[in-house]
């Protein structure tokens, strides 16, 4: 494919601890095309944020990439030097964090935070950077951007702050944006606005998005394709319609059944029995087997199942919602 923007190939992240090595990301492969929104969904601790952090090179030590490759625009980026990777961040990959209340520096006016990013990556003059900062704020829908550019973060509401965060992530015109739970901390009424803003901006610019969330509604609303993660592994990946309506992996099916509104036409919500295993106790074989209604001896005995029809399951498609 010529328009592939990001390729994550067999990525592994490890955290060495006193009790052994944890694998929060375990042989994950995915791609994002230019202008495409890939939703990454899963329970907390499934490794979705960790995957995003690995791509942008912001893993907190001692976590580190232990295997696999990441290519952006055809260039390998997982083994770049510290300084080269820093230049990639912001310029080629932007990031939006979960909580707009804490992701802006409270002591700097938002304009300063925008211009420092713009001058760092685009090498323009201060005056030009300021002009672009105002434009960026207008683009994300901050009213009276010209006068509010010198305001401090606390002078904005939560939704407005997340718009500022998006402007910051996009101001150096990156090709890829990693949005880590961008709506989780917001009021429900604001969530849809932020999602549609993100969607519109990325469509207009042809920016690829990795949209990390645990919210199936957000996925259904915004993404083109969706990747489902479970216990650090990729359970299923595919076009959003297909995954939502005809999930191939029993976990996806279970997730659909337990999400209000996602399973159309059904009244009752189903619960998946049990909980996701901790990273120190991932079961042998398919990680999902202890909770899976379809599991049999093979699921426990064999090594992990290969990807079949976009699902890492020995019996894809056999469990319906």
């Amino acid at each position, binding site marked *: 494919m010529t328009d592939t923007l990001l390729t994550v190939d067999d990525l592994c992240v490890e955290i060495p601890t006193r009790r052994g090595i944890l694998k929060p990301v375990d042989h994950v492969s995915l791609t994002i095309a230019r202008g495409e929104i890939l939703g990454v969904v899963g329970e907390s601790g499934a490794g979705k944020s960790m995957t995003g952090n690995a791509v942008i090179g912001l893993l907190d030590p001692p976590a580190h990439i232990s295997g696999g490759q990441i290519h952006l625009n055809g260039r390998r980026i997982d083994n770049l030097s510290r300084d080269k990777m*820093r230049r990639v961040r912001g310029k080629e990959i932007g990031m939006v964090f979960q909580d707009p209340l804490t992701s802006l520096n409270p002591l700097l006016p938002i304009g300063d935070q925008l211009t420092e990013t713009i001058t760092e990556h685009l090498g323009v003059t201060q005056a030009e950077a300021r002009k672009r900062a105002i434009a960026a704020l207008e683009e994300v829908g901050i009213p009276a951007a010209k006068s509010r550019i010198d305001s401090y973060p606390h002078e904005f509401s939560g939704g407005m702050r997340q718009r500022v965060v998006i402007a910051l992530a996009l101001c150096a015109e990156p090709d890829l944006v990693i949005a880590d739970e961008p709506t989780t901390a917001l009021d429900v009424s604001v969530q849809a606005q932020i999602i549609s803003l993100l969607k519109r901006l990325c469509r207009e610019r042809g920016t690829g998005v990795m949209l990390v969330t645990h919210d199936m509604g957000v996925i259904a609303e915004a993404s083109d394709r969706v990747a489902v993660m479970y216990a650090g592994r990729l359970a299923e990946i595919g076009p959003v319609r297909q995954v939502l309506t005809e999930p191939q992996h029993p976990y996806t099916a279970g997730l659909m059944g337990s999400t209000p509104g996602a399973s159309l036409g059904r009244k009752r919500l189903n619960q998946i029995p049990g909980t996701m295993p901790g990273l120190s106790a991932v079961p042998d074989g398919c990680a999902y087997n202890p909770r899976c209604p379809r599991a049999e001896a093979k699921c426990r005995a064999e090594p992990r199942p290969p990807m079949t029809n976009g699902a890492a399951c020995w019996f894809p498609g056999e469990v319906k919602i």
Partner: protein
Amino acid sequence: MLAYIIQRVVQSVVVLLLVGLVAFSMFRFVGDPIDNMLGQERTGADIERLRGQLGLDQPFPVQYYKFLEGAVQGNFGVSYRQGRPVSEIIAERAPATLELAAVSGVLAIAFGIALGVFTAIRRNGIASHVIMATSLIGVSLPTFLIGILLIYLFAVELGWLPSFGRGEVVDLGWWTTGFLTASGLKALILPAITLGLYQMTLIMRLVRSEMLEVLRQDYIRFARARGLRDRSVYFRHALKNTMVPVITVVGLQLGAIIAFAIITETVFQWPGVGLLFINAIQFVDIPVMAAYLMLISVMFVGINLIVDLLYYFIDPRLRVDRGAAAK
């Protein structure tokens, strides 16, 4: 904001009035001022005359008011021991203490912040561990032992630096300074290190822990995610946020430097106000003690006030009225 400033100023004045009351009570009730001022040979007329002269026959509030009035004008009476006006003695000695305190304060703040930031950024480096371990011993080490240790090393064993006094000073009329002569500067080194070391340790440990706390914040991750340079992340984003809590403590430490100067001045026989105060205690020279107490209170209260006001310049969140912030 204005209301807040006024409130703080009023509080400060109340504290000063209270301290003034303590100082005055010392002056008035500790021993008998008449006894202290007149020798063994005195007559009833002498006592009455002095009593009237000092205003001791007037009611207590009037005396207190007179005392305050004098204090504001810098009049603290006459030293029992030296028989000269206290204000004169203090004015003579203040430059020595202030120069010493200023140099140690600058040393403590500069090195304290630099080392604190360094040990926070290179948290797992060997140098950081060495610095932190040393600082733990430094905190337990009494100031006067540090001074003695330095004297032993640099004055007794190596003979590089003088162990006492200010060296040659230049008299500018209203101020005497040791900054202008080589011997004055040499004499300043050991006392300044002694006085600044403990404060430096405190500032360093505080800056380090605050910095580590700030570096965990989301906006630091976000700053990194935007591809900013380390220099910008550490010094533009992190350090500024670290400064808010640090300023309080640094402010209080500056006050403490003046107080701890007493110890350093005694170790090095530095002719400052602190040495004067210690001698005053040894000889129960109450007017000098009272004046010192008043002076140091003004400094402390002033520093506290400035620290509070500084917040407004550093933290914009405090500058805004509560209602104006968009919710």
